[in-house]
């Protein structure tokens, strides 16, 4: 199997697994228990918190452990919106957010908040003029993702932070697709709330975190105890948190070298695809992107058919986010970038990772060329402009 869907999930690093095992086997105590057996689990959680804080440049007390990136996004958006409700009811986000943010904003609209969904430019970067223009005295929260899950396009979070900070607006960013792929320094990014997840960076599923800058107003979604400073009640997933911290520390140590390696391979992939396959395009290529992600469009054929064709040859890629698999509508991200619906429909996402080697890339391009040709042979759009 050639796995090129690392934006969906990544394999657990052996070191993370090793770090987790003691907390699944002998040290299974509850971190809230009053005896030393509990304290052992408690100190594992706090050591993990300190490791992540150290690796990403924040205070340990600014990290709230959650069960998933989606939960961290929910805590950020719903938690800040609720805490700030007295100050205003306007939220600003973008048209290219992951469902975790998008659908949560829609839910907040049903609760009476007004949400602006900002357009992006054709290169996939949010329009900063539109963002500035959208801010008003009622704006309490801005949420702009750090790197897009489909295109990998990086949003100018630091510049957005400059705009929100001077207006006293809380800024959230979904960094699920950038953490582990870019050198991430939470103290320099400027966002008040940052969501990131373990299983996207070779840690376990079920462990994620929300960074909440000290002093950021936030109400809990889950109540029932003092866990996570009252922001997320529930017995901690000790082993998961330990494995998450291990993965974050390892990813941070190697992020620059790995980004370089992946970027070179991604560029090779895109060069070969465009050279070998007529009417192929790379989406978002004009913007800065995380180095592992490639969004490719092929005229006249359907992306799901490409994905299945590759799957039957043992190659895993996706059409968009794993969460929208089977969704018959074309990607909202590509549509927002102005990609025509037909072209968006013929798009796939290839995301490389730690185990990816050059020969995987070459084999994938070869298979892709075959499949695209075969599907175009079936396509009713054969000779026409799509």
């Amino acid at each position, binding site marked *: 199997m050639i796995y090129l869907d690392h934006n969906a999930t990544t394999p657990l690093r052996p070191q993370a697994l090793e770090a987790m095992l003691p907390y699944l086997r002998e040290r299974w105590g509850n971190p809230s228990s009053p005896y030393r057996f509990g304290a052992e689990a408690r100190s594992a959680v706090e050591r993990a918190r300190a490791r992540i804080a150290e690796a990403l440049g924040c205070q340990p007390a600014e990290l709230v452990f959650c069960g998933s990136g989606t939960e961290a996004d929910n805590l950020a958006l719903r938690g800040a919106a609720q805490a700030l409700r007295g100050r205003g009811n306007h939220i600003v986000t973008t048209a290219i957010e992951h469902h975790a943010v998008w659908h949560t904003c829609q839910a907040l609209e049903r609760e009476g908040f007004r949400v602006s969904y900002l357009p992006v430019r054709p290169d996939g970067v949010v329009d900063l003029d539109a963002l500035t223009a959208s801010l008003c005295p009622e704006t309490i929260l801005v949420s702009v993702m750090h790197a897009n899950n489909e295109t990998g396009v990086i949003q100018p979070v630091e510049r957005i932070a400059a705009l929100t900070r001077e207006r006293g607006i809380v800024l959230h960013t979904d960094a699920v697709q950038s953490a582990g792929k870019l050198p991430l320094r939470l103290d320099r990014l400027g966002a008040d709330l940052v969501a990131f997840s373990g299983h996207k960076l070779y840690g376990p599923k079920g462990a994620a975190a929300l960074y909440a800058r000290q002093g950021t107003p936030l109400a809990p979604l889950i109540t029932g105890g003092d866990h996570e400073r009252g922001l997320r009640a529930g017995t901690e997933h000790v082993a998961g948190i330990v494995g998450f911290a291990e993965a974050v520390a390892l990813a941070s140590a190697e992020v620059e070298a790995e980004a370089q390696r992946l970027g070179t391979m991604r560029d090779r992939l895109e060069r070969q695809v465009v050279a070998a396959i007529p009417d192929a395009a790379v989406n978002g290529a004009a913007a800065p992107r995380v180095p592992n992600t490639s969004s490719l469009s092929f005229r006249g054929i*359907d992306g799901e058919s490409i994905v*299945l064709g590759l799957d039957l040859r043992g190659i895993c890629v996706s059409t968009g986010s*794993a969460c929208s698999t*089977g969704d*018959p*509508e074309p990607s909202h991200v590509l549509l927002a970038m102005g990609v025509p619906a037909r072209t968006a429909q013929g798009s796939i996402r290839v995301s490389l990772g730690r185990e990816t080697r050059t020969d995987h890339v070459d084999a994938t391009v070869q298979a892709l060329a075959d499949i695209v040709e075969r599907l175009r*042979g*079936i396509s*009713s759009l054969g000779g026409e402009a799509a």
Partner: protein
Amino acid sequence: MDDEPGTEEQGLPEMAGPVIYYNETVLEHFVCPRNVGQLDDQETDGFGLVGDPICGDQMKLWISVRDGAIARIAFRSFGCPGAIATSSMLTELADGKTIEEAKRITDDDVVEALGGIPERKRHCSLLGVRALQAAISDWERRRAAGDGRP
């Protein structure tokens, strides 16, 4: 997973990514679709073009009619795996049938012949059926206009 205990009986919503859950017959028709292509103008007695406004998939279908039966059938599809496989199966079912029999082919017949299809992909099977009906109507129109073959 297919063999997850209890899933079927409890009638839980299908967890399926459609990609993973096509059965072997569907996959086989996706990989080797039957009757792909198009008929040239002399051979074409009926042509149908239909699209699905939601997913954007599209299908073209040609029939050649001899003595009131479908003598040749061909299709092209801009489509998802479901559209390709169901269209392929539809052409197999329709090939050689009399026009009256062909008119009675439903999307359920196609899905049944394939041994089932993920729920989210059921609408794909309508594409071929509608295209066939459109092609038959076209044939009927041509005959009424005096330039169709019987």
